């Protein structure tokens, strides 16, 4: 976790001073790098850990956290740290895919609505409203079931339901830009809508999009966890973060606290890391804060 260490021979006090001397821009960059590394680490961890530790060892069941098993073991003697990492990695990958798809849909529809206006705008806004009017979780369950459940069902459901708020933000941004003078000028000069979208809109939208994408992650991850928590699709012995948490519920009354607390903290950290990443990226991109 020591990102700023360039020369290891420096004393901690000195390092701290150097850190304090850094301006906010460097701190922001540091935070972004730190958050990214943490999340990337979780995503690739299963490839380093392999399948070891996921198999059942009946003689080592229900062990509290120790040096050998930092997160303890579950009722079948499986190592909870490895299970949690596997589960969170799956969740993050699902989240990544779903958030990217959502961002694509959101940007496309938002751009279209803002640029073309008229009935296109009306239809897109209507679709957005329909999505908003349905409880999100119900919609997720419906879609996951409709496409046949399983990991595929979860991914499709999460991907198809998270674009709405982003589409709204982008539409608003486009509308604002649309009414500006240079866009009016371009129109009078006879440029096509597509040309205006490409040259005037996109540069304004990219920062919004990036931040929006990052902030979609935690939503997507939590919803993936929620879906696997209520048991849609995945077999209950697979390590998904929602399944792990659901299973820990069964052991609440018996005092095996580490089954729920440790994976829960890991999930919390991951979601918080995304939040942090998003905030720092925003302050880097936003013209009002990026020069500070």
């Amino acid at each position, binding site marked *: 976790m020591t990102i700023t260490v360039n020369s290891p021979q420096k004393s901690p006090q000195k390092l701290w001073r150097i850190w304090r001397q850094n301006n906010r821009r460097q701190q922001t960059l540091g935070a972004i790098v730190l958050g990214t590394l943490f999340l990337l680490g979780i995503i690739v961890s299963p490839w380093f850990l392999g399948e070891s530790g996921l*198999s*059942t060892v*009946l*003689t080592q*069941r229900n062990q509290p956290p120790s040096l050998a098993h930092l997160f303890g073991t579950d*009722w*079948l*003697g499986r190592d909870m740290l490895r299970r949690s990492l596997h589960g969170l990695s799956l969740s993050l990958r699902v989240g990544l895919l779903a958030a990217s798809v959502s961002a694509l849909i959101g940007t496309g529809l938002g751009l279209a609505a803002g640029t073309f206006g008229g009935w296109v705008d009306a239809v897109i806004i209507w679709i957005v409203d329909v999505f908003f009017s349905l409880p999100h979780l119900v919609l997720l369950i419906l879609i996951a079931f409709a496409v046949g459940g399983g990991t595929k069902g979860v991914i499709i459901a999460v991907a198809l339901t998270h674009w709405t708020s982003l589409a709204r933000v982008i539409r608003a941004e486009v509308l604002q830009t649309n009414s500006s003078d240079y866009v009016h000028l371009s129109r009078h000069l006879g440029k096509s809508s597509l040309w205006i979208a490409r040259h005037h809109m996109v540069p304004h939208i990219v920062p919004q999009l990036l931040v929006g994408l990052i902030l979609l992650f935690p939503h997507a991850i939590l919803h993936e966890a929620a879906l696997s928590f209520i*048991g849609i699709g995945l*077999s*209950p*012995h697979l390590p998904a973060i929602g399944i792990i948490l659901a299973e820990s*519920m*069964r052991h*609440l*009354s*018996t005092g095996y606290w580490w089954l729920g607390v440790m994976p829960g903290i890991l999930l919390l950290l991951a979601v918080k890391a995304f939040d942090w990443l998003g905030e720092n990226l925003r302050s880097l991109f936003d013209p009002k804060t990026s020069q500070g």
Partner: protein
Amino acid sequence: MQIFKRKRLLEVLSVLLASCAIASCTPNPTDSNTADSTADSTAESSPAQSGSAEQIVLAIGGESEEGYDPTLGWGRYGAPLFQSTLLKRDENLNIVNDLATDYTVSEDGKTWTVTIREDAIFSDGKPLTAADVAYTFNKAAQSGGLTDVTQLEKATAVDNKTVELTLKKPQSTFVNRLITLGIVPEHAHGKDYARNPVGSGPYKMVQWDEGQQLIVEANPDYYGEAPDIQRLVFLFVEEDGAFAAAKSRQVQVAAVPQSLAVQTIQGMNLRDVISVDNRGLMFPYLPANSKKTPDGDPVGNDVTADLAIRQAANYAIDRQALVDGILEGYGSPAYGPVSGLAWEETKADIEDAQIEKAKEILAEGGWADSDGDGIVEKNGLKAEFTVLYKADDSIRQALALATAEMLKPIGIQANVEGKSWDDIEPLMHSNVVVFGWGSHDQTEMYNLYYSKAAQGDYNNAGYYADPAIDSTLDLAMGAPSEAEAVTYWKAAQWDGKQGMTTKGDAAWAWLVNLNHTYFVDECLDIGKSQIEPHGHGWPITANITEWKWTCK
């Protein structure tokens, strides 16, 4: 800004505290219930309710979705509670009279003549006669419910206290119908009977809130020994809910999963009851695509159709480790489908956890690891199959995972998948499935192994078919009495040369028998329990009339 926020927070907190003090956060003493015994006073509405001879609360599951009509299957695993049966099994599983005073079987084994006691009265006040018995048996045969009375040709009441049951062909297991089929009143048996059962059992139904609770009261007209406990409330909660309720002393009897049985609860004793409630791996017996079920589902699996695979799996599994690790010791290894019952062939038991022996069997069967991936092959076929388990059953999940782990060292790859029964059904004739069975009735063993019982449902799902076993099972079924059939039931399991268990065809890999674990209030004496069958209904209430509340 910061200071302002903090101030606000303090304000909010203090307001909350004050309002809490006024409205009293502690429960009002008058709320904590007036132990009145109206039908509405449930365990939920009255926290920390304690039991008494007046009323006890049981959280032992067993809500019957199809209701409480014996002719539709209620009570097929014993103890119908509302109704009484002609015969019953005592705590040692010996057959004793209940409604019947005597019964005889004709020379050809096709006619059963039963005389019944004359003092039995239904809970609506009308007497129970031979006509009701005849009606019940005819109705059950007609409805084709889960109670298997298909061999009955007709039942006729000879006089008020004698009934004659005529069979299509002799059936040694028919006595089990007399043991499990609760007698319903002909005059009050209609469409809504399953919701409002009327019977001559020790208790009568008072109220049933589906999915929540069922309240019964002692039947004052019961002809047998009057029960000590006046009122029983069955709470329908999940197993961990039952544990939590027991911990807060809201229930007096709680059925808990074995994993929770290691916990202790103040004021409650753990009661583990031996059962024949078993779990095992069912192997598809035929090669892949050898036929289709009536519904068009595939039958057969090339890997498990090989005897060496089935036997090696049986020998490799360490059943005691499963009992200790998954059931926390509350269970026993199972080598056949009827452990602990009089018709179990103990010679069929094997020494398991023998990796070397399992490897030898595989090698002799022609299985070898030629490509060095740790999985054996034979003629290009990898020793790999899928084990399906019911997704929401944690014991079956654990058994599937642990067994797959035990098969790895001998080079068999078992992939584990959890699904709902709906999803398992089309796959269960071509994949290995974790099933649970266990009954006091030999018919179940017959249905699991008899070739013609394989009709595309749960009976003989693996399409096991061995002509020699079939004929032994036929002999057992056709024997004139249960006692005489026992030899044949044993021979079908293993007679020294052939059998359906491991040393013979190894059609299944039986794993464990569960002990049913209950937390029982210290003040409640529930007598001696019989070996319990598979967990549907309320097997623990089989001796309910002997239950005593010992505290004052």
